[in-house]
């Protein structure tokens, strides 16, 4: 065995020499560091040393007197097992865990040498396909869908959707009403994905690490100048030393919890580089206060609808399976209620649903669109538009139910057999319990929708088999669930559908965005499975990926948490309380989070990823106050672009885009966040994310930044396991079912794999048909979790009764007397209603839905192509202003004309926008997309109007109700007036600015 060990080491030496001789990249890789590495046994003096110097290698048998690093194996037997190709990752990880394999020496040299060893495996790997004109075609992924990337001379030439080749799998076909529907053999890509090239080569890219000019970690830190002062370029070494030293200082001086990490809801795509992956591994290794992210695009479903029917693991939303086929075959009408899939493009799903909605038109199935603004989907479907005032939807819904009860237009048998508590709700609707019948005439005063229209809608809905599309996905994702009365809206959606017999053919949730007949059994992990994080507590890693891809586990030992909705208050006031997102059970949301935790430090250091919170969180001036507070001793921001709150950091670490690093992924696959989220897609496509270009400037991948920071903390080898991103990509490939269909080299070369559609018999069954027919649940998802069933496993809903509950037992148990969230759905006037006192000053209701042309802040500004879309921003005097849409009658009253600059304001602040006059806005309603990427105060930050378009500066932070943390900022009261003088104001501010604020030095 000893001889075999020595032979294998000699073989390694030969391979390294071969690589140096034949492969310039390998030679360059070796040349980065000089190192003497010893590989040896512990139980004897056998071994071999390797000396890497100037890109060359020397080696000798035996022990070196003075190696820089040592890799030791307990025995020759163990060494041979671990070194024998192909690598047995399980054995490697077990060996490291049991200390059969040890490493000594500086982290960065260990990493360098393991890479020199692993690099010999990569010598024959090729990737990308030669294309015309000297270009090479690679594959990558965006939040808007997969893409081909054509590259020439190290520069991205173009980004396109993927056209399948003749060897790729054939798609599915749905036969409905005598017609045949098959998607084309290609992927779609959303416009923000298609414009990615302009974001990669954005002038706002950060190309070097930077430090705020007046930040001195050893002297005056000047936190009050965050957001005001300029930056100077520093070296990576200086930047990483600074951050590593602050981590050590805060941990030892203040104790556990002193460091806070936070990430945006979405990131650059890719399972290895995602925040659930590299970031979580790093956070867990360092130990940090966690931010509990509220379900910000699902609020009403999570806090409200869930109590009627469970589905906690879907945040209270509906099962999506089989609904595309059922809808096309059986439905006679589709109601889109606060549902604009053409704007939000599902989520991560390109424009896959658009074609399917065109089939709806082909079949002549009528649609109704309920929304205060006539949205893109209503225009595309050319359907009936009903425009209630923002926040009044529940009144309209109650009146629909009143008509159904009065005229007997509901599924009485279903209500009797499959639901409980209907009589209690019915008494409220009929006014038996409160003396007010919720008639169409009653609702008019609240909604402004004519009684006759409500009656007409109720009759059509009650007589026709109707699908309800509620939110962008048809169940959840944006829309009214994020408004001040989102809980009531979501509850209304599920109660109405229950009355119509949920699961009856043609009666279900959906707008053709979700529920395609694709293969759900083929395994490929989504980002919810935590990538290489090993995080078995806060990701879904332990369910499948952890077993399939053996790697080190990781645990954050710091138990302190902060509710995200109160993050600035927690920092500024030193304490905060809130309710969590915990989707294991319906009751998970009742457990209070208390900050600070016992014997934990308040947060002293904030490690922030990206700059989006200030654009996406309500009343976001709070973030400016937080950043400028001395409570935060140190703020580091790791970001791709210089925008948003990245400009409020002390040190900025420039990250690269996912086109500049290796990764692997499947579009629309988020795993446990929404199981089988891919049923939005026409084709499941697994993509290799080629590193198509080198990182721009000195930017680095997130993984690399964490790894190198890890080296400074002695955590580097634990963090990386000696692996590069490409090594991790290969490990994830091997862990997935793709490896059974094509070889690694083939996948790496071609870049994608199309998962074949299942045969008709293997398609998932239709959502809720099992429930409607009183059978066991027969859908391909592992939830509710077993303990959540009350009687037999798989029988009934997750609710206490196992039935749909109009009168919610879980709410009764928690607080039966909660007037804000009572056990039955009741109408509650919105805190942002025009009937409130504040409406005399701010009489317009502003809708701030998810943006149509960008993906949250991604794609917005950065000088991207998207800014030129006439319906996104408007270029006036050199500035791209966000568009604020308003009805001509409201404009006329205020002297506002098309294209004029306007000040949109309330007591929270002012945002300067460009006016667009449109009949698509209900009079009294104004409409502008949220999630601006830029904050451009015209004067003192936080104290002057913004012309970046950050509408969340003026949306309310108030939770939808007190005993929960339900953001309710998607509509609020404002006033709009003509504005001029922006440039004057800004010029005056610049003139008074302190001379200490040097301009930022970003580009060479």
């Amino acid at each position, binding site marked *: 065995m000893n001889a075999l060990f020595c032979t294998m080491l000699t073989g390694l030496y030969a391979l390294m020499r071969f690589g140096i001789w034949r492969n310039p990249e390998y030679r360059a890789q070796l040349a980065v560091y000089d190192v003497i590495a010893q590989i040896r046994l512990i139980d004897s003096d056998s071994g071999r040393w390797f000396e890497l110097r100037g890109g060359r290698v020397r080696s000798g048998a035996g022990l070196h007197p003075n190696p820089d690093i040592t890799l030791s194996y307990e025995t020759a037997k163990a060494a041979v097992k671990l070194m024998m190709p192909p690598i047995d990752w399980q054995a490697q990880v077990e060996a490291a865990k049991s200390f059969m394999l040890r490493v000594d020496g500086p982290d960065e040299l260990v990493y360098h040498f393991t890479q020199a060893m692993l690099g010999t495996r990569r010598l024959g790997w090729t990737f990308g396909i030669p294309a015309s004109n000297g270009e090479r075609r690679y594959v990558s992924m965006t939040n808007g869908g997969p893409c081909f990337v054509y590259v020439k001379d190290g520069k991205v030439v173009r980004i396109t959707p993927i056209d399948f080749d003749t060897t790729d799998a054939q798609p599915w076909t749905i036969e409905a009403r005598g017609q045949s529907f098959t998607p084309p053999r290609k992927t779609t890509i959303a416009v923000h994905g298609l414009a990615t090239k302009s974001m990669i080569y954005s002038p706002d890219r950060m190309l070097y690490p930077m430090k705020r000019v007046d930040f001195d970690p050893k002297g005056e830190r000047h936190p009050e100048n965050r957001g005001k002062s300029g930056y100077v370029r520093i070296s990576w070494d200086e930047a990483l030393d600074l951050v590593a030293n602050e981590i050590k200082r805060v941990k030892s001086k203040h104790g556990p919890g002193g460091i806070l990490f936070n990430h945006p809801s979405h990131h650059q795509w890719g399972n290895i580089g995602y925040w659930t992956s590299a970031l979580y591994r790093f956070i867990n290794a360092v130990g940090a206060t966690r931010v509990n992210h509220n379900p910000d695009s699902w609020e009403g479903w999570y806090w409200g609808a869930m109590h009627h029917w469970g589905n906690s693991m879907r945040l209270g939303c509906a099962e999506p399976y089989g609904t595309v086929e059922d809808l096309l075959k059986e439905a006679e009408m589709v109601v889109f209620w606060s549902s604009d899939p053409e704007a939000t493009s599902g989520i991560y799903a390109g424009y896959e649903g658009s074609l399917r909605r065109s089939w709806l038109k082909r079949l002549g199935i009528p649609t109704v669109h309920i929304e205060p603004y006539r949205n893109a989907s209503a225009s595309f479907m050319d359907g009936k538009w009903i425009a209630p005032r923002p926040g009044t939807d529940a009144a309209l819904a109650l009146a629909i139910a009143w008509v159904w009860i009065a005229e007997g237009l509901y599924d009485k048998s279903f209500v009797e057999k499959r639901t409980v508590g209907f009589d209690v709700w019915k008494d409220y609707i009929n006014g038996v319990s409160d003396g007010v019948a919720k008639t169409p005439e009653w609702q008019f005063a609240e909604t402004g929708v004519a*009684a*006759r229209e409500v009656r007409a809608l109720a009759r059509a809905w009650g007589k026709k088999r109707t699908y309800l599309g509620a939110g962008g996905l048809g169940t959840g994702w944006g829309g009214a669930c994020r408004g001040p009365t989102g809980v009531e809206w979501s509850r209304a959606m599920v109660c109405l559908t229950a009355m119509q017999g949920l699961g009856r053919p043609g009666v279900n949730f959906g707008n053709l965005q979700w529920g395609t007949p694709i293969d759900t059994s083929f395994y490929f992990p989504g980002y919810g499975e935590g990538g290489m994080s090993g995080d078995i507590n806060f990701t879904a890693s332990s369910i499948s990926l952890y077993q399939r891809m053996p790697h080190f586990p990781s645990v954050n030992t710091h138990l302190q948490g902060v509710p995200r909705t109160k993050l600035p208050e927690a920092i500024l006031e030193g304490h905060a309380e809130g309710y969590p997102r915990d989707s294991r059970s319906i009751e998970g949301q009742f457990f209070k989070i208390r900050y600070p935790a016992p014997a934990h430090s308040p947060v002293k250091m904030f490690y922030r990823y990206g700059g989006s919170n200030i654009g996406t969180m309500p009343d976001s001036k709070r973030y400016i106050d937080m950043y400028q507070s001395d409570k935060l001793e140190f703020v580091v921001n790791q970001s791709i672009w210089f925008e948003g709150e990245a400009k409020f950091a002390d040190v900025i670490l420039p990250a690269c885009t996912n086109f500049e690093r290796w990764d692997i992924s499947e579009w629309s696959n988020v795993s446990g966040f929404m199981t089988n989220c891919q049923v939005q897609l026409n084709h499941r496509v697994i993509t290799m994310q080629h590193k198509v270009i080198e990182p721009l400037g000195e930017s680095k991948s997130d993984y690399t930044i964490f790894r190198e920071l890890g080296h400074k903390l002695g955590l580097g080898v634990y963090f990386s396991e000696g692996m590069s991103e490409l090594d991790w990509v290969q490990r994830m490939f091997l862990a997935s079912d793709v490896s059974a269909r094509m070889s690694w080299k083939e996948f790496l070369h071609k870049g994608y794999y199309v998962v074949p559609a299942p045969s008709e018999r293997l398609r998932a069954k239709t959502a809720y048909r099992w429930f409607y027919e009183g059978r066991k649940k027969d859908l391909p998802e592992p939830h509710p979790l077993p303990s959540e069933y009350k009687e037999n496993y798989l029988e009934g809903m997750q609710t206490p009764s196992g039935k749909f509950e109009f009168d919610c037992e879980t709410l009764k148990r928690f607080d039966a007397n909660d007037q804000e969230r009572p056990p039955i759905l009741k109408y509650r006037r919105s805190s942002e209603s025009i009937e409130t006192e504040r409406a005399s000053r701010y009489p317009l209701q502003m809708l701030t839905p998810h943006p149509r042309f960008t993906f949250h802040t991604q794609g917005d500004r950065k*000088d991207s192509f998207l800014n030129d879309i006439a319906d996104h921003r408007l270029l006036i005097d050199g500035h791209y202003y966000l568009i604020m849409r308003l009805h001509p009658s409201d404009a006329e009253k205020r002297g506002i004309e098309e294209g004029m600059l306007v000040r949109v304001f309330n007591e929270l602040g002012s945002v300067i926008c460009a006016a667009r006059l449109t*009949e698509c806005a209900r009079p009294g309603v104004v409409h502008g997309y949220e999630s601006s990427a830029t904050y451009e105060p015209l004067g003192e930050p936080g104290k002057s109007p913004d012309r970046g378009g950050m509408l969340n500066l003026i949306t309310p932070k108030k939770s939808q109700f007190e005993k929960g943390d339900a953001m309710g900022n998607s509509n609020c009261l404002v006033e709009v007036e003509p504005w001029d003088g922006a440039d004057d104001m800004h010029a005056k501010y610049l003139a008074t600015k302190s001379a200490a604020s040097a301009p930022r030095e970003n580009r060479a």
Partner: protein
Amino acid sequence: MKKWNLIFDVALCTGCRNCEMAVKDEYVGNTHAGYTAEMPRHGPGWVQIRARERGQFPAVDVTNLFHSCQHCDDAPCMQAAKNGAITKRPDGLVQFHPERAKGQKAIVEACPFRAAYWNEELQLPQHWTFDSHLLDAGWTEPRPVQSCPTGALRSLKVEDEEMQRIIADEKLEHIEPGSMTKSRVHMRNLYRYMRAFVAGTLTVTKNGIEDCVVGASVTLTRGTERVAEASSDDFGDFRFDDLIPRSTDLRIRITAPGYREQVLDIEVGNSRWLGEIRLEPA
């Protein structure tokens, strides 16, 4: 000889702007030697989606129109060009030659569709080439078509006779003066963008309760000519589309069993909603 044509279906366009962005992606930062110089990063796109709103709250619709170089067979720009700056390719595409077109602003001014653009920095007239450099390299469709999610854009390389048949079958039209300049870009359901509609809502009040009148018969006449017929839907709504804007002398007649007939004389400037029309029980 097969030649390229483009078909745009107004009814299938979601307004996603992928076609606009695909063209920006293809030409900003890229010079395609022998075909075109770089496109300016900002400013008007060589391909644009233009939205039009018709009607009034609450009877509104928004439709989109694809706007680009029409690759006319009788191209006015070619007549304005000097030094052979513009040629017609055998596959029907109009080709601007950057090296010969420099300084010829007249080319931009000659385009009746305003689909040629002046690149101030390069002093060049530019247009969307139909991605001819890609087609010549073996691509089967130009990028706006490839990136269109619904098939609202289609490209066809067919004989002119075959195209005439398709035009007749699918009732395709040109944006004028495309008929005169023999445009190669054809529009389907163009009325949704160019024409006007008139809509109304039929209501009735019985026993103090207002309701929508469903299934009433509505006819539209001009003089003695019967223009169209419709019936009111579940919401009492009816709509006549494909009307020539600024139509006068129109009459709407509403009949429904159990109601008195109503006649309205109307004019249609642009699209309009007639509002609620109250029917009286007979």
